[in-house]
């Protein structure tokens, strides 16, 4: 255990006193109480824990918290717990783009990064961007459609 690690989460400055090698996922969920970010495989293979680090999608389960020191982290809470919710959230619910819903927070963060690049991505581009994310229920086509809708400025 060393000194405090400071960074920004969803626009708020945070300071945590944990080992610098602690995976960011456990810091977000257990130390900061931001449990909307999912624990999936713990090995960076399923995308469920995806958050944005300075706007770039990363898997929080295999990113050490020290990598976030001095940087900005954005989690699903930034999209879902705002009023009104982010258009991506509206679009996912309008499409009923989920079954169990477990993969959605990670996918929504990936989609936010994709949309930040501007333009209207094609179905193929959206699918390719999501290839690091696993969905086991088979809601893929609805998720792709929801992101396309949000990208085109549509939404609920």
């Amino acid at each position, binding site marked *: 255990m060393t000194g405090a690690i400071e960074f920004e989460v969803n626009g708020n400055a945070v300071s945590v006193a944990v080992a610098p090698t602690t995976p960011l996922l456990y810091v977000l969920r257990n130390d900061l109480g931001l449990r909307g970010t999912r624990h999936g495989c*713990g090995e960076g293979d399923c995308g469920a824990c995806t958050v944005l680090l300075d706007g770039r999608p990363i898997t929080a389960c295999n990113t050490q918290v020290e990598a976030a020191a001095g940087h900005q982290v954005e989690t699903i809470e930034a999209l879902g717990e705002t009023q009104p919710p982010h258009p991506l959230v509206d679009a996912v619910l309008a499409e009923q783009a989920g*079954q169990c819903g*477990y993969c959605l927070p990670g996918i929504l963060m990936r989609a936010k990064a994709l949309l930040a690049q501007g333009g209207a991505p094609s179905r193929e581009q959206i699918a390719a961007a999501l290839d690091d994310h696993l969905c086991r229920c088979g809601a893929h086509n609805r998720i792709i459609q929801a992101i396309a809708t949000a990208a085109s400025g549509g939404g609920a």
Partner: protein
Amino acid sequence: MIDIASSPSLDDNPNCADWFDLSYEGKVTLRTAKVEIGQGILTALVQIAADEMDIHPDRFEVLSGHTRLGPLEAQTASSLSLEVTGRAIRLAASALRHLLASEAATLLQAVPDDVAFVDGTVHVGGRETPLTSWTLAQTVDLNVPVMAHTAPKAMTERCVVGTSLPRQDLPAKAVTAAFIQDLSLDGMMHGRVLQPPSLSARITHFDGEAMESRFPNVQIVQNGSFLGVIAAREDVAIRAIAAADQCTTWDAGATVAADLVEAIGTTEAAEEVVLHKADSPNDSGAAIDPTIGATLSMQTRRTYIAHASIAPSCAVATWRDGELEVYSHTQAPHGLRDALGIVFGIDPVKHITVIHTPGAGTYGHSGQDDVALDAALLARTVPGSPVRVLWSRADDFAAAPLGAAMVVCAQATLDANGRMAAFSIVSNSQPHARRPGQDGAAGMTAAERLEPPFAAHCCDDVPLVRGGGAERNATPLYAIPNIRVAKRIVKDLPVRTSAFRGLGAPANVFTLEALMDDAAAYAGVDPIAYRLDHLEDERAKAVIERAAAMAGWPGRESDDEALGVGFAQYKNRSAYSAVIVRVRLDETIRVTHAWAAVDAGEIINPDGLHNQVEGGIIQATSLTLKEAVTFDGDRITTHGWSDYPILKFSEVPQIAVELIDQSHLPPLGAGETSVAPTVAAIGNAVCRALGARICTLPITRDAIVAAIG
């Protein structure tokens, strides 16, 4: 049509008060043991109740899977929730409404038929009164039998059922901590358990001193070959269990056949004939003279499948004053409760409460119950403190029950006109459902590693009367004069198998629909026409015809692309599905398109049904093209997603689904309906594109190379 047949769920919970509580003004609590596993069941049940009670769906809260506060019902499985619980809810909601209407009529000196409810407010003769469902419920005795008071609305009077009400649980699941894996209780500790390298391996040595010196603040729990750790921090628990693994020596476990699937194929287990239909008593299908036509045969094999949930299994358990409380994503809350009672030797009804909390989709009996025992065993050492156990991804592949491997042999005898005169099938398989508490066995892995150990769970397969396990959907719906269906259940392999979506149906439908295509080819008849010619059930014909029209059957043929069809009525009694896929063979095997027509009787929620059908097609595509658990002896060598690829976003087919409206007929379970027909359709499309039959699942490039050289 008024539907007044009872429901099995009413047997144990006969009264209105078992299902509904109107104690809170403006709210209705609907109670059920059925649980949400991503299929939208709770929203559908609310729709049914809202219609019968004339109360807006938003006013409903569902208490689901709570063994102390909710009704006792069977597990959430086999696409039965709408058929069984949906009916119970409809009957109970109707009875409740009639009881309240009768009370209102008495109080207002009106005739009951003039009493109407508008979102819970009583109207008489079209005028609003001060009475509400909630004020009436304060004085009406709801502890009365549902069946004595029920008279459900006619189908034409329903207005919530049949609409695509959005899932009530999805908003929270999309963005917040809504899952068992996210549960955080006051004072909660984090536990991890060492899973054995194989089912039969036992600990021969554990260096506890080394562990204690490295992790002085971690509690180590050992009982026989059950070994776990408890820590205040989750990341510390993870590091501690990794260290414990290095401090532990296991024995070699059982010696097994080199090829488990081969062992299933060549088993000497007794053949159990589950169905034998002959056109004359002396005529056993196999005895038909093959010289009058032809005999076609087929042997297929399916490897072991992982449930492969996106979230590993998880539970939170707390012991307080000898009482055990477990939060679990089990599909069988009461079964888990009773099984925990067996392990701990306490009366489960008095001392154990299981509270369902949703997990990620598992599509059957995953490690959901095993992890609950892990958590309860650890928590017992720290009374008063909740202990959360989350399996690792590798544990979930290695220790959870698997979908059974199967070897299916089928034979068809064609008459001189090319029609199928006889069909015989034998499905070799391990058992398909071994849930905890079944047959009085604990049925959770840790119980077998305790000292003294509980006996390993080895029960029979699911009988045909419950839809069958190995023989599920082995009986063709086609009108064939002679049909013989048998199974051989292999019980002596050290691999734990239990329910995975569809049980034996995917392997059986893959086989029998392949044989239908081969028979059609032999007879020189188009595969769709051949099926229609063998069907008497109009609903079956209708879905096949609709799917063929949607797909533009037979479609354009090319060197590397073809359409294929698969059809089944799930369990020969639930929803009907016909699926046509287009497969493209190049460097990879791709399903580019899928068209499905489904008849699920009365549709409670069209979009929900649509979603289930789409999901089933995508998951089945993944199973058919990619998925296989691998072994070295009895050790599972599938550890992570890189060992067990599933279909990626860029690989999913475009899908079109049409639902055939049969709102005058009872609803039929549809959670599994599209899976087996999709597997069969892909098999048939690959055959047509390749010009050769691939009989092994998954159909990988390697399987094709092996088959055609």
